[in-house]
Each structure stands twice: as C-alpha cells, then as structure tokens.
C-alpha cells in the first residue's frame, strides 16, 4: 500500500494550484460548449462525472491519506440515492429535508459500520467493507415497496423550498459543480489540518501514534464518517441526475470502479480523483461507442497505468514534464 501512495507535499505547489484551477474552469465551461452539441447528453454525462468525482474524492481521502482501502463505498452512494427515492415515494421531495437526510443516513451507516470495520486493518478491512457494501446492496434489492431489484423512479427532481430548482439541466449541473468544489476544498483543508495530520499519521505508523497519545481508532472513524457523508451527497445528486435509483448503484463493481478511478487519477492527490473519475467515465463512453467489449481495451489500459505511471494520470503528466524540462 505504501508503494502506491506518494508522500504528501508539505506545501501546496503552484503546479497543483494551476491544475486544480484548470479542472474547475474546464468543468464550468462545459455547459457552454455543450450548447453546440448534444446538450442534454453532454450535460448528463458530465453531471455523472462530477457525482462520481465526489465519491472518488471520498475514496481517495480514505485510501490515499488514511491508508484505509475501502471496497464498499458504493453503498454510501446508494444510501444517499435511496434516501431521496424513499422520501420522494412518501411525498417528501424538498432538498431542504432530503439532502441533510441523505448525508445523515450515510454518515450514520459509516459510523456504525466504521466502528466494526476499523477494528481490523489491511486485507481484513477491505473484506469487511466489501461485506457491508454487499449487505446494503441486498437489502436495497429486497425493498419490494421501493422497486426491489428493478429500482424505483423518482416522482420528480428535488425542489428547494418548493421551487423546482433542478428542472433545468444546467442548474443541476452547476449545483453539482458547486458541491464538487465544496467537497474538494473541504477535504483539502481537512487533510492539512490537525485532524488530517493525525489521520495521515495513523496510516504511517499506528503504534507510534498510540504511544504519543492518540486514540487512532476514533480519528479513523471520524475520517470514515466524513467519507461516508460525501458518498451520501454523491448519492443525493445521482438520484436527481438520473431520476431513478436501483440496487445496482451499490454493487461491489461500483465500489471497485471508485478505487480504479482514484488509482487512474493518482492516489493521495485529491484532484487526481476528479481527473480519474472523468477519464474513467469518458473513456468508458468513448470505448463503448466503438465496441460492446470495451472492457477488453480498458483493462490493459489500466494495467499500463498502474505499471508505468505510479502516480496515475496526474503523476504521468508530472513525470513527462520533468523529462521534457531536463531535455
């Protein structure tokens, strides 16, 4: 695990700042470019990208900084999405209620499962997060009143104090972008904070952390709850984007994809998670246009990235640039 994760720079570099600014500016400009093409399609694709970027950020926070390889994070997306769907089925569609509720439900699930998962570490942690993820998946599939395996369609997108704010795809797009930016800057602050220092230290050497007086478990559980809450936020947005929720959102393949996104972008960088989510989903879209068996191309590509670009796409760009400047 330590081989995968690069050391975190003590100070933020100008290069990172430029890359981050470029990412967010590009995302802000997408709707304008989309106006010249298949607008609906492009907007919904990029909303998906941003939603999964939020979840991938949470996964990078856990894996890349906390050393907690979670293989069940899709469950939190599903919980957030189902909260919206179930509340909607009972006539509650206002996001003033459903958004905090979606976040609360996932945070609570993270607290309870984290209390158990974090007693273990390494492979056992991976397995037990997977087990909880699968539990959530099967429970969702057995919710007959809410569509069971087939899933459930939302009556409508969420409203805000009665206003249909998400009626316009662009509004949903920019709100999602806003949440993505919020999630990114929040996690970045957390990583560099006192808490973040303890959280990162726990990955490095938990015994040492205990002997200087930290109850590592408590800090890790808080980190797990933060990541879970962000998963719930992603779920809330995903439900609104697709106006449909199904157990498939929680499948273990989804959790695996989140890890792939993070590795693809560059573990332990945060903004790499956004790059990773975008490259993964856009590549999937492009490759699927060529052939039904797009995973045949995608698989080897992932292997190449892991083998030759340890730091993911972000690391690849950095090392190419370093090579060019060296001449």
């Amino acid at each position: 695990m330590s081989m995968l994760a690069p050391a975190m720079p003590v100070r933020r570099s100008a290069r990172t700042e430029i890359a981050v600014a470029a990412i967010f500016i590009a995302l802000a400009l997408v709707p304008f470019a989309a106006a010249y093409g298949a607008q609906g399609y492009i907007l919904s694709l990029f909303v998906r990208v941003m939603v999964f970027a939020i979840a991938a950020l949470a996964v990078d926070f856990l894996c890349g900084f906390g050393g907690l390889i979670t293989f069940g994070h899709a469950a939190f997306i599903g919980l957030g999405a189902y909260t919206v769907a179930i509340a909607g089925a009972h006539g509650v569609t206002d996001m003033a209620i459903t958004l905090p509720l979606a976040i609360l439900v996932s945070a609570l699930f993270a607290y309870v499962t984290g209390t158990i998962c974090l007693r273990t570490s390494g492979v056992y942690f991976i397995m037990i997060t997977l087990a909880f993820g699968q539990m959530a998946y099967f429970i969702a599939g057995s919710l007959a009143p809410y569509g069971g395996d087939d899933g459930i369609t939302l009556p409508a997108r969420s409203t805000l104090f009665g206003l249909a704010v998400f009626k316009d795809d662009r509004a949903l797009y920019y709100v999602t972008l806003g949440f993505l930016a919020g999630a990114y800057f929040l996690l970045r602050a957390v990583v560099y904070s006192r808490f973040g220092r303890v959280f990162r230290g726990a990955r490095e050497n938990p015994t040492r952390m205990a002997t200087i007086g930290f109850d590592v478990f408590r800090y890790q559980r808080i980190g797990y709850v933060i990541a879970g809450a962000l998963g719930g936020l992603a779920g809330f947005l995903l439900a609104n984007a697709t106006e449909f929720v199904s157990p498939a959102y929680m499948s273990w393949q989804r959790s695996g994809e989140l890890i792939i996104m993070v590795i693809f972008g560059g573990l332990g960088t945060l903004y790499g998670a956004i790059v990773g989510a975008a490259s993964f989903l856009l590549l999937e879209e492009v490759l699927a246009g060529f052939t039904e068996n797009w995973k045949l191309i995608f698989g080897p590509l992932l292997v190449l990235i892991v083998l030759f670009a340890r730091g993911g796409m972000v690391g690849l760009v950095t090392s190419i640039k370093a090579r060019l400047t060296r001449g």
Partner: protein
Amino acid sequence: MADAVLLIENLRKRFGGLVVTDGVTLEIGPGELHAVIGPNGAGKTTLIHQISGTLTPDGGRMLLNGADIMPLPPNERARLGLARSFQITSVLPRFSALENVALAVQARSGSSYRFLRPAAREAELNDQAMAALTEVSLDHRADIVAAHLSHGEKRALELAIALALEPKLLLLDEPMAGTGPEESERIVAVLKKLKGRFAMLLVEHDMDAVFALADKISVLVYGRVLASGTPHEVRNDPAVTEAYLGEELE
C-alpha cells in the same frame, strides 16, 4: 515510596511456558535515570512493552505518579506523561522531521479535533517542535522527510518526539542500537543534557553508556531482578559479575 514517578511491584508475565517477567519490582524517583541491563532474552523489552501498555502483564502493580496505569491503553498512559522510544526505529517515514515532532506537540497541547486550519502553519506547534529538534541537534534537518534521515538521526528524532511530549517518565529502549560510535556519543551527550529533567528508564547494551548515565541500575536475568543499586554497587556485586557483567567490564 509515595513520590516515586514509577513504581512497579511484583510484575509477572509469561508467554506459554516461558516466564519473561518474574516478579519484577522497580522504583524510579523524580529526575532519576534508571538503567535496566541484562543478557539477551532477559525480558528487558518485554518489560518496556508492559510499562508502555502494548503488552498486558499477568499480574502485579504499576503506578505512574501514584496512579494505577495497569488498566489503561497505551494512548491514555501517554496522556499521563509516559513517553517511549523504540528498539526498532519508529517514526512516521513520510512526515518531515519537524512534522513528526509537531504531531507530538499536538498530542500534548490542545485538541486535534480541528478540521480546517492548516496545522503546518501553526507557529505554536512549529516553535515547540523546533525547540525539541534543537535539543537533539537536528534543527538543521527539520524539513527532511524522516525516511531520508540517517539511522542515528532517526534515533535522535525519536528522542525529540519524546521530548516534545514533555514526559514525566521516558522509556528508552536501546536508543543506541545500531548506531556507530560517533552517533552513540552524540546520543549519550543528549541524554546527559536531559538527565534530571524527568525520570528515565533506559534499556541499553552499551555498558559504557549505561555506567556513564545511570543513577541506578537493575540487572535483569531470566525475567528476575538479580541486583539493583548504584552503578558502583552493581559493578561490585559478585552475583552480577558472575551472571553477566564479567567479561564486558574487563
């Protein structure tokens, strides 16, 4: 007895059939440097593990400044003022030297449940961390990532971490292990400087260092305290000479 920093009474621990701590009784007064010596396998490191809380004894009593620490986990013992260094270097490899120590300062002062302000810019943490690094002459290496420090520097960094905790009692598990003669001298010099500021329990194989530093020495053989006293008394104890010191002191 009441003013002892650490009081251990009749401590016992066995691993299966092997008795590793056999009724150990030990008392360390304020500012005292107490060395524990003994041949390999005498149970010295096991003793340190039990004091710091990473191993649970089978029986006996352990008081830190009069408070029973037996039921406490390692992190709570640390909060009561127990700091330790490890036989095998234990630092945070991807943290800079300064951040390693700042984390210890953070553990002692204020809450670590702060989520937004960048910790690296907290002057209060950095200044105290820098002071600790200066005491072990590592201030010029503050920004170096711990993994890139030399072995001796890592040992010094461990001391700085312990110092930053402002401990009541410092457990030193072979601080000289694996260091060259020059580096050993440096660590002895640092320990001499620190002596008297807080109580220390030193486990060490380097007899020159032990006799240069210790106020009291306990000799541990097969988990038992064979002898205990001033360096002079221990050196002249025939049982000790026979069991252990003999050849090394000639």
